[in-house]
C-alpha cells in the first residue's frame, strides 16, 4: 500500500460514506485500489455520524504518521465512537485509543523536531536573498509543520525540501511540491562554521552525557545538521580535556589549624606552596601588635624586604613610615603585612644581570597565599583593615578596586573586618609622574591612614 494514496480530506469523505452505510471496520479497504466493499450482514447504518472535536485533532495528527494501518485505525475509532461508546476517547487504556495517542504523540514530536532541526542556508536567487533547507522528518508532516516557518521567517522567501514533499514560501503564500532526495540538495553556507564554533564552545566536557543527547537529538536527523559533523571529535577529545583540567597546577598554602602568631610565622617560613618560594630568599611575614585594631595590608615584599625578611623596610617602607609618623600613628600599635608573602621578580637586563626587578603578583599567587593573610586576620581580629594599592584591595574586596575613586569610601560589607578601606600603595607615590602628584598622593595616604586609625580606635564603630 502506498503511503501517499490518501490524504486526510480523502479519508474523511471515504469514512463518512462507510459510516453512513454502517460498514464494519474489518470490511473497509484504504489502499489506492479503493472501492471494493464486502456486503456484510451486520451492518448498523449511522445516519448522522458524530465526529467530536478531540477526535478530529487526534485524527489529523495520526493521519500524518508513517504507518500503513493508520486509516483503518482511525475508521475503527470513528466507528466505535458512533456505535459503541461516545466516551471512547476518555478510555486512554483502550488499545485503539492508546495506539492512536501514541502515533499522534510521535507525529507531534516529529513536527516539533522539524521546527527545531531545520537548518536554513542563505543563498541568492536572481540576486535576491533566500533561504533553503533539507530535512528528513520521520512522518509525513511537511504540511502541518510548514506554517510555523512562514509565521517566523515570513519576511524572506524560503524553501524546505524533504524526501516526501517540499514547502515553499514566496512572501505571500505557502505552496507544496514533490520531495527531493538529499543528494540533490547542493547548497552550502560558510556560516555553518560559525555555528559549529558556537556548538563546540558551549559544550561542557565535565558533563558528557551522550545518551541524553541522542535521546533528544536522534541520529536519524543528523545528516542535515552541520554541528553533527563534529560531535564525534568533541566526544573523543573529552577525556583529554578533563585530564588537562585536573592536572592544571593549583596552589594553596597549607596553614596549621591551631596556632599562635609565632607558629604561623614559622610555618609560613617553610611554605613552598607556589612557585614564588623557589626564587625568593625568604618568607616575609606580617608583624606588629597582635592587639591592633588597625591592620595595614600591602602587596608583597620587595628586594630589600626579601633580603632582610622584614615587611616595609625598603624605599616604599620608608614612605609608609613617614606617612604613619605624620598621621600620628605609632607603627608598633598597628599590624602591617602583605597580601603575598614572597618576593616575585625577573632578572633585569643590566650588564651584570643581577638586578632583580619586582613583578606584580598574579591571581594565582594571590589566591595561593591568601590563607596566610586570612590566618593573620583571624588572629589579630582588627576592626579596620586598610589595603594599600590594587593587589591588596583585590584580595580583600573580592573585586578590582580603583584607588582613585574608592579611597575615601568605607566598605562595611566585608567578612574580614567591620570596616575595609583602601589607599595608595607607597610605591605609587614613588612612581608618581610629577612632584605635584607625588605630594597629593602622599597627603592622601596620610589622611587615609589617620582616618582608618581613628575609626579603628573608636570605642564602638558607628558606621
Amino acid at each position, binding site marked *: 500500500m502506498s503511503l501517499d494514496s490518501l490524504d486526510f480530506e480523502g479519508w474523511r469523505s471515504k469514512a463518512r460514506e462507510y459510516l453512513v452505510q454502517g460498514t464494519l471496520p474489518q470490511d473497509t479497504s484504504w489502499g489506492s485500489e479503493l472501492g471494493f466493499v464486502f456486503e456484510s450482514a451486520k451492518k448498523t447504518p449511522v445516519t448522522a455520524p458524530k465526529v467530536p472535536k478531540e477526535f478530529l485533532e487526534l485524527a489529523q495528527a495520526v493521519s500524518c504518521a508513517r504507518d500503513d494501518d493508520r486509516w483503518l485505525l482511525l475508521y475503527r475509532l470513528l466507528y466505535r465512537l458512533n456505535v459503541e461508546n461516545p466516551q471512547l476517547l*476518555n*478510555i*486512554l*487504556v483502550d488499545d485503539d485509543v*492508546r495506539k492512536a495517542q501514541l502515533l499522534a504523540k510521535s507525529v507531534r514530536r516529529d513536527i*516539533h523536531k522539524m*521546527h*527545531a532541526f531545520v*537548518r*536554513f*542556508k*542563505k543563498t541568492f536567487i536572481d540576486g535576491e536573498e533566500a*533561504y533553503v533547507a533539507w530535512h528528513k522528518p520521520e512522518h509525513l508532516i511537511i504540511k502541518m509543520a510548514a506554517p*510555523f*516557518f512562514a*509565521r*517566523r*521567517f515570513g*519576511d*524572506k522567501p524560503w524553501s524546505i525540501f524533504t524526501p516526501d514533499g517540499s514547502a515553499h514560501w514566496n512572501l505571500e503564500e505557502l505552496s507544496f511540491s514533490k520531495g527531493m532526495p538529499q543528494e540533490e540538495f547542493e547548497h552550502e553556507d*560558510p556560516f555553518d*562554521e*560559525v*555555528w559549529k564554533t*558556537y556548538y563546540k*564552545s*558551549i*559544550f*561542557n566536557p*565535565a*558533563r*558528557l*552525557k*551522550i*545518551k*541524553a*543527547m541522542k*535521546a*533528544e*537529538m536522534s541520529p536519524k536527523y543528523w545528516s542535515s545538521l552541520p554541528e553533527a559533523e563534529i*560531535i564525534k571529535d568533541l566526544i573523543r577529545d573529552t577525556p583529554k580535556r578533563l585530564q*588537562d*583540567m*585536573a592536572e*592544571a597546577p*593549583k*596552589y*594553596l598554602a597549607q596553614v596549621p589549624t591551631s596556632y599562635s602568631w609565632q607558629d604561623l610565622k614559622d610555618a609560613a617560613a617553610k611554605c613552598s606552596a607556589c612557585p614564588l618560594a623557589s626564587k625568593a630568599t625568604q618568607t616575609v611575614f606580617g608583624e606588629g601588635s597582635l592587639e591592633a585594631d588597625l591592620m595595614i595590608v600591602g602587596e608583597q615584599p620587595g628586594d630589600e624586604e626579601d633580603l632582610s625578611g622584614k615587611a616595609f623596610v625598603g624605599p616604599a617602607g620608608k614612605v609608609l613610615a613617614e606617612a604613619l609618623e605624620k598621621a600620628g600613628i605609632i607603627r608598633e600599635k598597628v599590624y602591617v603585612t602583605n597580601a603575598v608573602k614572597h618576593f616575585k621578580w625577573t632578572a633585569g637586563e643590566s650588564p651584570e644581570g643581577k638586578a632583580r626587578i619586582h613583578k606584580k603578583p*598574579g*591571581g*594565582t599567587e594571590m*589566591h595561593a597565599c591568601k590563607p596566610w593573610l586570612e590566618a593573620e586576620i583571624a588572629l589579630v581580629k582588627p576592626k579596620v583593615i586598610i589595603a594599600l594599592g590594587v593587589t591588596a584591595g*583585590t584580595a580583600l*574586596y*573580592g*573585586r*578590582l578596586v580603583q584607588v582613585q575613586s574608592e579611597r575615601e569610601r568605607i566598605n562595611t*560589607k*566585608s*567578612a574580614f573586618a567591620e570596616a575595609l578601606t583602601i589607599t595608595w600603595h607607597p610605591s605609587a607615590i614613588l612612581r608618581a609622574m610629577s612632584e605635584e602628584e607625588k605630594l597629593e598622593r602622599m597627603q592622601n595616604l596620610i589622611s587615609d591612614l589617620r582616618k582608618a586609625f581613628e575609626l579603628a580606635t573608636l570605642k564602638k564603630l558607628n558606621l
Partner: protein
Amino acid sequence: MSLPDWNSLKNKLSILADAAKYDASCSSSGSQRKRDPKGMGNVEGMGICHSYAPDGRCISLLKILMTNFCIFDCKYCINRVSSDVKRARFSPEEVVTLTLEFYRRNYIEGLFLSSGIMESSDATMEKLIQVAKTLRQVHKFQGYIHLKVVAGSSQELIEEAGLWADRVSANIEMPVQPDLDLLAPAKTIDSATTSMNQIADKVAESKEEQKKTFKAPKFAPAGQTTQMIVGATPSSDALILSSSQSLYKKYGLRRVYYSAYSPIPHADVLLPREQPPLIRENRLYQADWLLRFYKFDASEIVDDSSPNLALDMDPKTAWALRNRAFFPVDVNTASREELLRVPGFGVRNVERILQMRPHRKISLTDLTKLNVSLKRAKYFVVTSDHNPDVLLLDSANLKSSIVPEHTQLSLFDLATTAKTGEL
C-alpha cells in the same frame, strides 16, 4: 549590513560562549511575540531546543557574554579578575549580527546575553540594553531575548532592560550570605534580591497596566528566573531548598536553576577539585519540582534531621517512605493532591487517571498502560483489582524492595528527569 570579519568573530565566539556555558538557564518559553511585518522572528509560547550538546543540554539560545573581562573576583567563576584566561569583548553590533544570522538560519530561538562587569555595573548593563534595543528597534526582531542583570545595576536600567527583553533575571549564585562571603566577597544576597524585587514589582505593575489598556508596554513577559551554584560550598540541600522556596514566594520566580559546580580550568584552590555528583543537581531539580507542582513544602522534603536529599532515591519516594501513614492511596477515589503524592505518578499521569475515572474503574494493568512506574508506585496504591504489593507497605525492608541496593543509577533517566524534574 557590512559583512563582519568571520574569523575574528569566531575567535571571540569561542571565548565568550565558552565562558557562558556555566549558566544553566536556557529555557526560552513563557512569552508570546508576533512577527513584525517588516522584521523577522516570533515567540510562540513553548520554547524550542534547536540542538543538544554532547553534555545532553539543550541549545535553544545564543548564550554568550558581552565580555569576559570582569572586575569581580568570584572564585567559582572562570572570568574572575584573577583568573588567567584569554579575554575578549564583543561590540554590541557584533552581538546583534550574530543573533540575526543565527536566528535566520533557525539555529536558535533568540539571545541570552550576560556579561562580565567592565568599568561599572551600570556601564555594562547599558551595553546589554543597547543590544536588545537595537535588535528590537532597528531590526524589528521579535525573537526571544533574555538579559542577565549585571550585579549591582541601578533600578532605571533594570526597568529599561525589561522593556526590550522577554526575560530579565538576576543570579543569586549561592543560597546564603556566608557562602558568598567565602567565594564572592563583593556580592551580596541583598543586592541580588533587590534586583529581583524590582523586576517582580515592575512585572506586576505592567500586568495591571495591560489590563487597563492593550497598548501598555509589556515588561519582561516571560518573568524572571535565577541560578544557584551547588556543591562549591558545604551548604545543605535544606538550606538551598528553603532559599528557593522563599524566592518563589517573594519574587514570583518562574524557576530556580541549579548548576552543579563544574570544575573550571584555572579554578580557584578553595573550590572542590572534583565535580559534586551530578545526581545531586538532579535530585534538587526533582525536589524543586515537588515545590512548584506538587505543593510540597521544603520542610517536608528536607529538614534538620536529614538536611540533604537522599542520592539513592528520588525525593518523593523518600518522602513516601517516611510518611507511610499517608498511604495507601485509592486510585479510584483519591483527590488530585493525594494522587500527586504517590511515587511514580507524574503530573500528566494524574491528569490521565482523573480523565478516565468517570468512565472506568482503574486497575493495575491500566496503570502500566499509562506508563506509570509501577516499580515505585505499587506499594502505595489501591486499585480496582487485587494489588498484593500494597501489603508490603509497612514492611521493614520496603526501602530495599523499591531501591535495590545495587541498582546502577541510570544516567539516562537522570538526564530526562533533570530536564523536567517530573517524578
